[in-house]
C-alpha cells in the first residue's frame, strides 16, 4: 500500500507537564486594545505561548484584528499578518505551501514551522467555513485553524453569527414589543462539522480559556500531529454577553458544567472527552441547570421561564438522545421512534 500524501515533520511539541513547567516567554504581550476580561485575547496569548517562536500567525478580521493590532502597537511577538474575514483556511494553506516548496527547492532553511490561522466565529463558522473545509482536505500541509468563539460579531457591535446561542439579544436580534425572540437559530456545531466532514483530519478539538493549561497542551498536540487541524475555543465576552468582566473565567466554567460547551478532542479518529465533560458523560457529575449560566448574562435578560425551559430541553436532548452525547446529533433509530 502506498500513499501519495507528502507528510512533513512537525516540531513535535511535548505537553507542558503542569503550570510550573509553562515557559515564561510571552509571544503575545502588551499593545492590544481588547476589553477588560476579554477571553478571546486570552486564547491568543495561550496559543502563542503554546506554539513558541518558530511560528507564524495569520489572523482573519474580527476583534482579534481590529482591537488587537493597532499600527505601531502590535502585541505580537510572532510574525503576524492580517487576513481577510473569510480567509483563515486559505491563508494557512498558502503559507504552508510557500514554506514547503521553498524548503524543497533549497531556498529556505528546512525546518518545521508552525502555521496557525485564527478566526472568530463570524470568520470561521460563517464566512470562512468553505475555505476552512477546503483546507481540512489537504493532508500534505501542517497547519492549525483556531476559531475563537465569542458567539457574535463582537467587533462590529455584537451581531448574531452562526454560533450565537438561541434567543440571544444582539444588535441584530434585539427583543421588541411583539417578538421577544429574534434569533431562532441553534448554535452551529462547528468542531464535529470539521470532524465528520473531513475524514483525513487527524485532530479536532474544543477548548476553553477557563482551562488554560489544557488549552495550551491541546494546541501543542494539534500542531504536532501533522496535517491540517482544527480547534474551536469558547470565549466569554463581557461586552457582547453583557456581564461583569470579573465573571469571564466563571462563565467559561459554567458553560462546561451546564453541558452547553462540551470539552473533547478527537485524535486520529479516537474521541476523548476531558475535564468536567468527561465526568458529565460518565455520570460522575450532574449537569448544572442552564439557568445558572444564562441569567448571569444580560444578553439573556429578556428570557422568560419558557425560554429557559426550551434551552434546557435542547441541552438535555444533546446529552440524552444524541448518538455521541454532546457531540454528534444523530439519534439511534429505535430512540428516535
Amino acid at each position, binding site marked *: 500500500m502506498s500513499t501519495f500524501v507528502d507528510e512533513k515533520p512537525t516540531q513535535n511539541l511535548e505537553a507542558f507537564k503542569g503550570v510550573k513547567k509553562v515557559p515564561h516567554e510571552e509571544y503575545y504581550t502588551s499593545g492590544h486594545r481588547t476589553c477588560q476580561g476579554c477571553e478571546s485575547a486570552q486564547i491568543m496569548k495561550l496559543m502563542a505561548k503554546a506554539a513558541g*517562536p*518558530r*511560528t*507564524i500567525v*495569520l489572523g482573519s478580521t474580527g476583534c482579534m*484584528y*481590529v482591537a488587537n*493590532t*493597532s*499600527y505601531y502597537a*502590535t502585541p*505580537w*511577538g*510572532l*510574525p*503576524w*499578518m*492580517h*487576513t*481577510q474575514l*473569510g*480567509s483563515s*483556511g*486559505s*491563508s*494557512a*494553506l*498558502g*503559507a504552508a*505551501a*510557500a*514554506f*514547503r*516548496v*521553498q524548503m*524543497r*527547492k533549497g*531556498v*529556505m532553511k528546512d525546518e518545521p*514551522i508552525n502555521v496557525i490561522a485564527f478566526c472568530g466565529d463570524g470568520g470561521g463558522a460563517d464566512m470562512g467555513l*468553505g*475555505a476552512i*473545509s*477546503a483546507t481540512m482536505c*489537504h493532508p500534505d500541509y501542517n497547519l492549525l485553524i483556531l476559531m475563537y468563539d465569542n458567539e457574535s460579531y463582537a467587533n462590529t457591535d455584537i451581531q448574531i453569527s452562526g454560533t450565537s446561542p438561541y434567543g440571544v439579544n444582539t444588535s441584530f436580534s434585539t427583543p421588541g414589543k411583539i417578538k421577544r425572540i429574534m434569533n431562532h437559530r441553534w448554535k452551529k456545531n462547528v468542531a464535529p462539522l470539521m470532524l465528520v466532514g473531513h475524514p483525513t483530519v487527524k485532530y479536532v478539538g474544543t477548548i476553553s480559556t477557563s482551562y488554560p493549561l489544557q488549552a495550551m497542551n491541546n494546541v501543542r498536540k494539534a500542531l504536532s500531529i501533522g496535517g491540517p487541524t482544527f480547534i474551536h475555543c469558547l470565549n466569554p465576552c463581557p461586552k457582547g454577553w453583557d456581564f461583569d468582566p470579573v465573571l469571564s473565567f466563571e462563565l467559561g466554567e459554567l458553560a462546561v458544567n451546564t453541558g452547553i460547551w462540551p470539552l473533547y478532542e478527537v485524535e486520529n479518529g479516537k474521541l476523548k472527552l476531558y475535564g468536567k465533560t468527561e465526568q458529565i458523560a460518565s455520570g460522575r457529575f450532574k449537569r448544572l441547570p442552564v439557568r445558572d449560566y444564562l441569567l448571569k448574562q444580560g444578553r439573556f435578560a429578556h428570557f422568560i421561564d419558557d425560554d429557559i425551559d426550551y434551552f434546557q430541553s435542547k441541552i438535555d436532548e444533546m446529552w440524552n438522545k444524541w448518538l455521541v452525547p454532546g457531540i454528534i446529533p444523530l439519534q439511534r433509530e429505535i430512540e428516535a421512534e
Partner: protein
Amino acid sequence: MATVTLPVEEKKKSNEQEALITGAEAIAIACKLANVDVVTAYPIRPYDTVMQYISQLVADGEMDCEYIVAEGEHSQFEIVKHASVCGARVFCGSSGVGWMYAMEALTVTPALRVPLVCMVGNRALDDPGAFGVEHNDALAVRDLGWMLTWVDSAQEALDTALIAYRVAEDRRMFVPLAISCDGAFLTHSQALVKIPAAEQVKKFLPRYDRGDLLLHPDNVISVAPQVNEDWVMEIRRQNYAVTEIACDVIREVYADFERTFGRKYGNPFFEEYMTEDAEVVLLGMGTLSTPVKVAIRKLRAEGKKVGFVRLRWFRPFAGPELAKCLERFKAVGVIDRDFSFGSPNLSGVVATEVRSAMYTGSSTRPPVIGFIGGLGGREVTVPDVEAMTDVVFQAAKGKAQPLTQWIGLRG
C-alpha cells in the same frame, strides 16, 4: 504540445525552441520557465486551460511547484497572496465573474504589496451567460493598484509573463499584475511560439526576494495592522508612488528583455501599425488587432490613410506618451471591448481614459470617437472596421459625429 526542433546552427545561436501552442499554453510554459513556486487553480472558462497545462507539467515532473485546486476564486487568490508574503513566486488566474468572485482578495493584494502575477482570460460578465471575450472583468480592478496589460498573440503572452514577474517583483514595485488574454481568440488559438531556454530565463529573472517584508519566524513583523485615519492616507500614497515610477520600470525591463532574448517590442506601452503617414487612427486592446490590421491593409489599398494603435499597458496608463502619439492624427477612433454605463459621453472605459489623457497631454486634441463592439465574444469584422474608419474620417473632416457608437449590433 508539438515541438519543432530548430536546425543545429540556428539553435546554437538562439538556444530557442519553437512550438505550436495556444496563448494559455504559452503562459503555462512561462510559469515553468519562471520556476513558479505556488499555483492555485479553480475552473472557469476560458482562462482555465492554463491550469490544465500546468497540472500536466507538474504531473510529468517538468515543473516543481505546489499546485493547489481551491474551492473558489476568493480562496484561489487568497492562497497565493499569503504564499507570496511567505516568499514564494506565485501564479493564478480567472475569467469573468470568477474574477469578480475574488474581488475582495483582488482589492487587498496591491495594498499588501504582493507581486502576484495572474492571467485573466477575458470573458463577458454574467448575466446573461456568454463565454466570449469582454474586458470588463480585468478592468474592474483598474483603480486599485493592479498593473494591467493586454496581449494579442501567444508569443507576446509568453514574453509578457516573463516580463511581468520582473516588473511585479521589482522591489520598487511589489504590486500585482494581470495579463489579459482575450477568451477563445487568444486563450484557445494556436500559433508558433519561440520558447526561450531555461538558462536564459534564469539570467533574466532572478529569484523573488521578499526581503524585510518576508513573513517568517526569522523576521518578526506584523503585516497590515489596523491603521485608521492615522496612517491609511500615507499608505495609499505609497501605492501611488509605485504608479509614478511604473512606466520607467517597465521600460527598463523591456530593454533588458530585448538584450537577453533578442525579441523587440519597441515602445512597451503601445504598438503602432501603419501610423507613420496616417491621417486617422483606430485604437484598441487585445486580439481585435487582427481584423483591424487586415482591414487597414485593405483600406490602404483603397488609398485611405488609416493606422492602428494597440494599447498594451492599461495600468500604468502611459498618458502623456499616448497623447503625444495621438495628437499627430486628425481624429482617433477608440474601439472598446467593454462598457462603462453612465460614464461621461456614455463611452467605453478606454475611450474615456484616452480623452482624459488627451485633455492634458495634447495641445491639438483631435476628436476622439468611441466605439463599443465585440462584446461577449462577437467578432469585430473587417466590414465593422471599415465602417468605423469612415466615421473617424468624417470626424477628421470636422463633421460632428456621435461620441459613442455601438458597432456590429444586430437589427
